[in-house]
């Protein structure tokens, strides 16, 4: 039995450790099988260094045609499953062809790696970073080990951040003026604003503010657009009269937002919208959608 099991087991164990693995922040990553794993977090232009340790299974030797480590940035479209597009690919050769009889450790380092895009896990697209160790073998097939890691890039607060102010309405029916205090919000930001009712001739039941994410993938005729409502936040209950002004205060922190991604490598975009929805007593919906930019502000803590 043991023998048979041994036949399907990889000939060796490969482990990848980061040199600052103990201190580096770990963040959860949702894997394909639905489970979450904690993975280290990096940002662009950091050094990614560590050790690869290869330990052959007891009493066996590993014969190889060379060992290498790659740092890959991949974009994966779900409708085109398995077809990765590598936008970043760095390689370090770790060993020349030979044989390994016992545990062997190789240090590696990628210094100041350009990782312009953030990790992203969307509906139709995934952008991931991974370290890939390959032990090349001839007929037996290569032994490959992956280590995912996350990349988040921080943006300084925008120098220009104007408010969004707009008057909309349906003639002789409803006129409102709304205002959001900014057009760019960071992930833990608060949307402050107000809605001012200039004319109300319909019987409004309630008013919600929705945060919607619009993920578009592909290009041209193959563009897929997926829209998700991430937040539905009731702003008002009941029917206002002319002259009422309803406050908005929406904390973004409870929602799983990502920064806005615009045309990432010509493959996909992720945009966010604030959708103001008024519902009347006949459940008719009146809405106005406004794009807002979400960015990631460096944690001060």
């Amino acid at each position, binding site marked *: 039995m043991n023998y048979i099991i041994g036949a399907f087991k990889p000939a060796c164990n490969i482990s990848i450790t980061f040199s600052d693995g103990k201190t580096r922040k770990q963040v959860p990553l949702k894997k394909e099988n639905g489970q979450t794993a904690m993975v280290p977090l990096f940002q662009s232009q950091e050094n990614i260094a560590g050790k690869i340790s290869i330990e052959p299974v007891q009493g066996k030797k590993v014969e190889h045609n060379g060992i290498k480590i790659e740092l890959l940035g991949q974009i994966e479209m779900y409708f085109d499953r398995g077809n990765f597009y590598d936008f970043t690919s760095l390689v370090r050769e770790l060993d020349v062809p030979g044989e390994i009889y016992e545990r062997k450790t190789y240090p590696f380092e990628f210094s100041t790696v350009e990782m312009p895009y953030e990790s992203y896990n969307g509906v139709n697209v995934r952008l991931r970073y991974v370290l890939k160790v390959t032990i090349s073998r001839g007929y037996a097939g290569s032994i490959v080990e992956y280590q995912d890691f996350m990349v988040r890039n921080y943006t300084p607060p925008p120098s220009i951040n104007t408010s969004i102010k707009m008057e909309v309405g349906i003639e002789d029916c409803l006129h409102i003026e709304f205002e959001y205090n900014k057009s760019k919000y960071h992930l833990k930001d608060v949307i402050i604003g107000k809605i001012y009712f200039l004319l109300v001739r319909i019987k409004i039941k309630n008013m919600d503010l929705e945060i919607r994410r619009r993920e578009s993938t592909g290009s041209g005729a193959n563009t897929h657009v997926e829209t998700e409502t991430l937040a*539905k936040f*009731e702003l*008002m*209950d*009941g*029917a*206002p009269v002319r002259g009422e002004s309803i*406050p908005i*205060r929406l904390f973004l*922190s409870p929602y799983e937002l990502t920064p806005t991604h615009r045309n990432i490598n010509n493959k996909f975009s992720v945009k966010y919208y604030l959708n103001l929805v008024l519902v009347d007593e006949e459940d008719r919906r009146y809405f106005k959608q406004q794009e807002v930019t979400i960015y990631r502000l460096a944690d001060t803590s």
Partner: protein
Amino acid sequence: MMIPDGIEDEDKWLTAGIAGLQQNAFYMHRALDTNNLKDALKYSAQMLSELRTSRLSPHKYYELYMRAFDELRKLEMFFREETKRGCSTIELYELVQHAGNILPRLYLLCTVGSVYIKSKEAPAKDVLKDLVEMCRGIQHPVRGLFLRSYLSQVTKDKLPDIGSEYEGDADTVMDALEFVLQNFTEMNKLWVRMQHQGPAREKDKREKERNELRDLVGKNLHVLSQIEGVDLEMYRDTVLPRVLEQVVNCKDELAQYYLMDCIIQVFPDEYHLQTLEILLSACPQLQPAVDIKTMLSRLMERLSNYAASSAEVLPEFFHVEAFAKLSNAIGQVIEAQVDMPIVGAVTLYSSLLTFSLHVHPDRLDYVDQILGACVGKLSGKGKLEDSKATKQIVTLLSAPLEKYNDIETVLKLSNYPRFMEYLDDGTNKVMANVIIQSILKNKTCISTADKVEALFELIKGLIKDLDENLDDEFDEEDFNEEQSSVARLIQMLYNDDPEEMLKIICTVKKHILSGGTKRLPFTVPPLIFNSLKLVRNLQGQDESVSGDESSANPKKLFQLLNQTIEALSTVPASELALRLYLQCAEAANDSDLEPVAYEFFTQAYILYEEEISDSKAQVTAIHLIIGTLQRMHIFGVENRDTLTHKATGYSAKLLKKPDQCRAVYACSHLFWVEDHENNKDGERVLFCLKRALRIANAAQQMANATRGSSGSVMLFIEILNKYLYFFEKGNSHITLDSIQGLIELITTEMQSETVTPDPAADAFFASTLRYIQFQKDKGGAVAEKYEPIK
């Protein structure tokens, strides 16, 4: 069928709501017990979601709200402990705002907000301002009102009031004020808006529901009044104008009336007094349908009570010219509201009058002014038909009477009588009665003819028939009572000065003689006696004064009396007139006016002869005549003879024998007046008694003939007593023999079989005999005199 179904459904929904609330409260408690903040927030939000219902009437919604309220107290305690365990309040304050539904979110926010203020981590004013602003998200009237009421409830002990622990450099009472005012404004807006929402056919139901909710709005005014830091200045400059602005602008009658009343009731009287102008200036701006009169009435009532509470506050009233301001305001309101029913105007004036009486008791001119204004309002409308209005007028007119307890003061009010003209007859009477009762109660003496004139003008409702064709509603008992009151009133008119008194009498006479036949029997006697009293007074004074040069001499008075009594003959009330004539005759006798007395007697006799035909009445009359005549001492022999002769003549002509008998033996006294020697005629006395005996005999025989029994010996015993009387007085014509004979006659008669036993007669006779025995036992001259009688 529709409505019961609705109610049933509502109960079902309420039950469901309570069940949902309790279930989530259970999970919330579990989370609280295990210090699980996340679950606590989750379940409390779910619990509060039950309050999002639109299906319940305010009444039922309140029930649900109260349950949630209790649960929120537990949550609040948990939050407080949570902050002690290290969770920062600001974090909590943010956390609760993550809730997606606005209503639970805001309830939680208010709850944490109250903890936040208590923690003093942020200035109270900032938290309060934030809370009151955020609550704008609820625009549904009922839910909004309850939410804001919750806000008011949890913050009312945390306002940065003066002396409160939340007062600080940054937090002043102004902030507290601002907060409450804003919450009030928003609540009122929601409340007013309620009426416009929903189908028009349910308008009545909505109005009812609104009424149920009004206290939620009014509570804010109460909170305002509780803020220590609101002094007069702040009230005048900030609170009142802001509240009034809201009241006026909401343009809703229900709200305007309720809130104005609230303002009047919750704030202190002295504030009202100092801000009268501001408060009153709002009145004309209210909706026409608002019941301003009740409102103003209540304001004036409060101020009146305030004025009555302590004399120290009165100068303030003068200082602020409260009367002028109120009077002005009322004028404006009445002018502005053309359609105001007359009762409204009268109520207003009535309140103002009460106010004036309390605050300015010395200012009669104010009272007159009010009456004048009110009369002005009434004029041109004819007699009042509205029973409510007349009722109010009675109150209005009674007020000065009650206050001054003195009709004289009221008589000075020139507008008072003008008022009476607008009353219908019934009310006029009621009012006249009130006036009379007031006089009687206070024993006010009305002492000049002018006043009497004015007074009678006021009460003319009782003095004369105002409207002839009201007889069908005539109530004998009421009428008698009224007229008795008038009679009592006449007795109250008095002046020590004969001249003035005479004038008073003339005035009264003038009035009562015009009163018609029904009233005379009531009103004449007191007048007569009043006059007789004056006559007696004149006698009491130096008689030489009452010469011809004075108009108030007895002669003149008697002339007047004669005329007055004459009026009675038209009634006809001859018996009464007869008595009065006799009374006057006696008075004339005392005044030594023989011709006058003779004239009165003549009148009495004429009446007897011509008017008194009833035999019973005749008996009474004849005895009266005899009694009076017996006491007259001024008549000369001739006059006296004429009169006594007539009287005995009348006596003998009475219908029934026993009556005849009694009248005749009574006449015997006419010839035997003690203390007047020239008036003692023993022979005629005996003549009378014998005649009486004869009649008694005849009476008995008649009885025998008609009934077979000889009737009572009563008459004989009575005559025996007369004999004894004159015997004792020394009438020499009364002999022992005749007495002895009479006794024997009676004894025989009593033993005779034909006589019906009469215990009263037996007793009478026995005591007469006992008397004789008693006199015998006395000894001395008396005994000697009686000795021979067996």
